């Protein structure tokens, strides 16, 4: 069984936010009104922001500042704080280590949004709304079943959503392999942000495979994870700048 992971090389990232846009259109993330965005209700499954987020004593003052940009998808932690607090099991880690979110189950208590130290979870404060041109061209992919609604499926008002490592792409790749009567290869599946990355800064693969790119990068001296001390063991691995 695979253990999907992502590597982001901060040396190559140009902070163009192409990943954010690719993610938005791949996953039908709704845009919010400017007023809501100002309040901090904008939804960015894949956000790009400066680190540290809030100025500290170490950031310094202009012009002697130290800051770097990091793209931030869901960390898909090995030990996710969000799934432990969900009272209904609407969010869960599947056997391949991907933390999924079931919109048909979520009761909107927002315990997971508070539980996640990375702030990767977003809440649908209002009914999602697109302008007509975009509404006509939403991604039709979705993961559905009885009591299951996942992936890019349009979310109802009042539920939590988050990055799923484009789980629908994994489903599609698997099904294609079945139809073509062959084994599924791990390189058949990448999330949209990895595919689009302008600087080729993102890598995706299986951490359990000792020869995969992500495993090799993980052993690099440059590798680090966000909030490493919190014991969440993220599967998004960053390569330090410089």
């Amino acid at each position, binding site marked *: 069984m695979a253990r999907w992971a992502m590597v982001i090389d901060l040396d190559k990232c140009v902070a163009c936010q192409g990943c954010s846009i690719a993610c938005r259109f791949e996953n039908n993330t709704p845009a919010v009104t400017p007023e809501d965005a100002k309040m901090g*209700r904008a939804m960015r499954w894949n956000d790009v922001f400066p680190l540290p*987020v809030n100025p500290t004593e170490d950031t310094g003052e202009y012009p002697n500042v130290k800051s770097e940009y990091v793209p931030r998808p869901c960390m898909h932690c090995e030990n996710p704080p969000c799934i432990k*607090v969900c*009272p209904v099991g609407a969010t869960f880690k599947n056997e391949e280590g991907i933390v999924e979110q079931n919109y048909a189950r979520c009761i909107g208590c927002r315990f997971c*949004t*508070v539980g996640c130290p990375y702030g990767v979870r977003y809440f649908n*404060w209002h009914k999602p709304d697109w302008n007509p041109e975009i509404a006509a061209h939403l991604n039709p992919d979705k993961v559905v079943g009885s009591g299951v609604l996942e992936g890019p499926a349009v979310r109802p008002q009042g539920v939590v959503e988050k990055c799923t490592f484009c789980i629908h792409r994994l489903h599609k790749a698997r099904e294609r392999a079945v139809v073509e009567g062959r084994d599924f290869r791990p390189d058949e599946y990448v999330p949209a942000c990895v595919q689009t990355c302008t600087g080729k800064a993102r890598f995706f693969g299986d951490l359990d495979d000792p020869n995969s790119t992500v495993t090799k990068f993980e052993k690099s001296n440059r590798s680090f994870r966000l909030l490493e001390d919190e014991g969440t063991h993220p599967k998004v691995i960053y390569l330090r700048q410089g």
Partner: protein
Amino acid sequence: MLKVDAHDKEKLIDPLFAKPGKGFIITVGVLLLIIAFGAFMYIRQFLFGLGETNMSRPTYWATYIVNFVFFIGISHAGTLISAILRVTGAEWRRPITRVAEAITVFALAIGMTQILIDLGRPDRLLFPIIYGRLQSPIIWDFISVTVYFLGSVTYLFLPLMPDLAIIRDNMPETAMAWQKKLYTILSLGWRGTREQWIRLEKGIAFMAVFIIPVAVSVHSIISWILASTLQPGWHSTIFGPYFVVGAIFSGIGALFIAMTGIRKAYGLEGYIAQKQYRNLGLLFITMNAIWFYFTFAENLGIATGQQVYEFPVLAAKLWGSFAIPFWTMVGIMAIAFWILVIPLITPKSAERVAIFHPRFALGSIGGAALMIALMFALPVMPIRAGLNIFAAQTVIWTLLILEVVIILLGTTLWLKAHPVAATAIAAVLVVIGMWLERWNIVVGTTTHAMLIPYATYIPSLTEIAVTAASLSMFILMFMLFFKVFPSISIWEVAEGRRVQEHAARSAPKTAKASEAH
């Protein structure tokens, strides 16, 4: 046919059948208006989504969760206090247990409603039962609050049963048909036989012991909802006991307010006497001291650790965006402590000392107003510039604190002469302070999450209206309940008299000594 003391009948039973007074009807009307507006705002929120509130990312939890913690905290007034007093055999509990137990039931009902209001999908309310994940503290909370609610209702009803039978047998002729039916059905055929009494006493004794650990678990679990996350300022081992103490503290405050209201509305000075105020007041002072200890202990570790994500939360409370609610909380808790303690330790001869005279207090109010005006209100530039000097600020703040102390000293003699009013004032302060405490803990942390820009949060009209409606609903339930059911446990008070008579007969000397108290 059960008998009742004539005075008890006049004071406790007859008012239930009297026509509601003008004040009662007006109060109910005003409360209903507030509730109607709150309900309207909630329906809007239900239709248009939680975006109608001012919550955002990272302020995912705010006013509703504060209200939830607050009301569940208030609920500890009752059952816990009345159970502890019953188990320890405190005789003075008798007239106040009913009020305390009623607070518990209503506060729990309102508290649980807050969670429903806060849900993004209230239509999926049953999912925690169908798909519950036992690891989630919300499920623990669901279980413990449900057990506490059912236990509290039972614990309220058991001692009420003989009273209902007494009312059934001693109703005035003017009682309406529905009233006759109500008391007959609810008293469940109580005849006051020996066997019934033995069973009732057994039931009450069991419930009293059973409810104490449940009550402790309820507020511990609420604290663990916060403490089990990694959020800065919440991830603390002290939260369980801290919240339980805070809950009992605010609960006693609510009990004082409720029993003072009932005492005044029904003229029950003969039942709820100085003794109840003094004894419960001592418990109140103790809780105040423990609360201060916990608040200090909780924040000391954060202050000395100065960790990257934790310290800004405390800094916001000490001098940042939460300074006003934080220092208001500390200030009014300290004043509540003063109001309760100083009259107890000031000797009567203090009236001969000039500083205790009210005129000094009045003078100080003027002085304090001047200081505040100097600091905040006057936009005159030279004064502003002068005040920017650190020493000037220190002098002004020292004078202000000194003046507050003098104002408090000036009120001491009045407080000593009016212990009931003093306790009620302290209780109101404590209840407000405890709401602010929850505000500082919940919103203080959610606005200062990790890896998300710090946010500011002010409740929207929806949240304010729903909060006001919740409080009104709580008061309304309380008022209507005590219009139908006796506010003082008739049989327990009568039993108390017998216990006293018995003690007086068997040991006249000790009884006299206790009466002198």
